[in-house]
């Protein structure tokens, strides 16, 4: 963790301010679906760097393998087979954590420090503090965190926070042979994405767009989508938002008010006893 421990923006279920003496610029990973050739090098590199090995599965009828994210698969190439115009296309999604600026998982987590948001934008799970309640799964608008059955801890993409903290790019970025995955400051990445949009639009992809959903405050994994008007075709939510019920459920104000009221009940009892004294049977001494 080293000095990264100073660069914290938010911690789950914590009552004191996060250390904020320093802050770093926000980073982002940009995934350009138009340049992706579906080689799965990013998926392999993720397994390699993070030392993850899923069980050997079975072919479920399409090219996505394994069929879903799991505790050993933190990034997954999803090969969405879609008819676009009169051709069948692979609309490939590099699925994994989007590292929301307003992370629903962190809001939902009841365990202090189990979920950390660094000032560079990375949202990281600290499994040693995870209590296995799965609230983060209920808070995520993207359906990303996965609970491991063997240890009841939740896992997801770390955006290679270990590599980034020492100035390296994430493993998936390093492995990508076409430059479809880029990494840098978020400003830089958005600028670069704009260039990509210009290029795509000049080639006839009129609806190309950047996926950086404002409903979650923007993300630190942004996508360039050639068919940007229909993110659902890629398996992405059109306008992901934190659920209103999440805000009510995890409302710190409501909970603090609840605690104060509970203390009030105890104090009311003491005051009542002092004011009125015990209710005794007249003339009887308690034995």
């Amino acid at each position, binding site marked *: 963790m080293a000095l990264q421990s100073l660069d914290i923006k938010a911690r789950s*279920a*914590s*009552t004191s301010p996060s250390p904020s003496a320093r802050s770093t610029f926000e980073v982002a990973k940009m995934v350009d679906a138009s340049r992706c050739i579906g080689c799965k090098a990013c998926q392999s590199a993720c397994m390699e760097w993070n030392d993850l090995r899923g069980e050997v599965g079975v072919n479920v009828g399409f090219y996505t393998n394994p069929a*879903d*994210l*799991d505790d050993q698969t933190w990034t997954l190439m999803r090969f969405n087979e879609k008819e676009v115009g009169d051709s069948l296309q692979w609309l490939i999604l590099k699925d994994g954590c989007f590292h929301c600026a307003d992370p629903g998982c962190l809001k939902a987590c*009841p*365990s*202090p420090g189990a979920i950390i948001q660094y000032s560079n934008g990375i949202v990281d799970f600290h499994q040693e*503090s*995870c*209590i*296995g*309640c*799965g*609230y983060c*799964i*209920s*808070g*995520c608008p993207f*359906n990303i965190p*996965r*609970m*491991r*059955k063997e*240890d*009841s801890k939740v896992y997801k993409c770390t955006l290679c926070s270990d590599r980034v903290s020492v100035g390296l790019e994430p493993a998936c970025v390093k492995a990508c042979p076409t430059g479809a995955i880029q990494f840098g400051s978020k400003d830089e990445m958005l600028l670069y994405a704009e260039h990509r949009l210009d290029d795509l639009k000049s080639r006839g992809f009129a609806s190309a767009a950047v996926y950086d959903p404002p409903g979650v405050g923007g993300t630190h994994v942004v996508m360039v989508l050639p068919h940007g008007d229909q993110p659902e075709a890629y398996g992405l939510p059109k306008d992901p938002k934190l*659920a209103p*019920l*999440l805000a*009510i*459920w*995890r409302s710190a104000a409501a*909970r*603090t008010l*609840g*605690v104060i*009221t*509970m203390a009030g*009940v*105890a104090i009311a*009892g003491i005051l*009542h*006893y002092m004011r*009125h*004294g*015990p*209710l*005794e*049977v*007249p*003339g*009887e001494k*308690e*034995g």
Partner: protein
Amino acid sequence: MDEKPILRHSVTERMVHWTIAIVFLFLFMSGLALFHPVFFWLAGFFGGGALMRWLHPVTGVILFAFFAWYAAQVWRDNRWLPADQAWVKNMSHYMRKQHHPEDTHKYNAGQKLMFWSMVPIIAILLLTGIVLWQPAWAFDPASRGFFPPAVRRLSGILHAVSAFAMFVGIGVHVYAAYWTKGSIRSMVRGTVSRAWARFHHPAWYREVTGQPEGPQGGR
């Protein structure tokens, strides 16, 4: 004057009552740790957060089972009677010891309200608790768990609100028992004095003893 004490709570009823009390304390402390981060340190009493998260729902089922048995024993004595309406109307006077009703059966209206509020609260806590429980093996990634996230979020709200209401109810219950001298003894040793029964539960006194309240009725 026969001053033999009257049995108010059988030994089984007392043991079940105190089992529920201890189990409630356990659930309250572990629930409070999850309710507000200020109290997360309470997790230390339960061997840390992960073990606490495992224990809390199991303990909840135990509370439900004991409460269900208890409720089956006492619900008849908690049926709402016309006289209870008058007790509620005079509750503020009762709390100031300015009014004492003559027609109270085994439980007064306050005790009945406590009982009947606990029935739905505990039922809601059980149902929403089952939704929140969802151990790791029940998390099917494709469906994001046996219960969908929206249902879990709603259950989380209902569970917290009900638990809060339960604390307030139990808080009033504990204080009322401490305030009404002789009632803790009745739940520990089982018996109350005849004067106590005549004073607090005159209708019940007449029922169990077959005697009118007599000259020592206490008023």
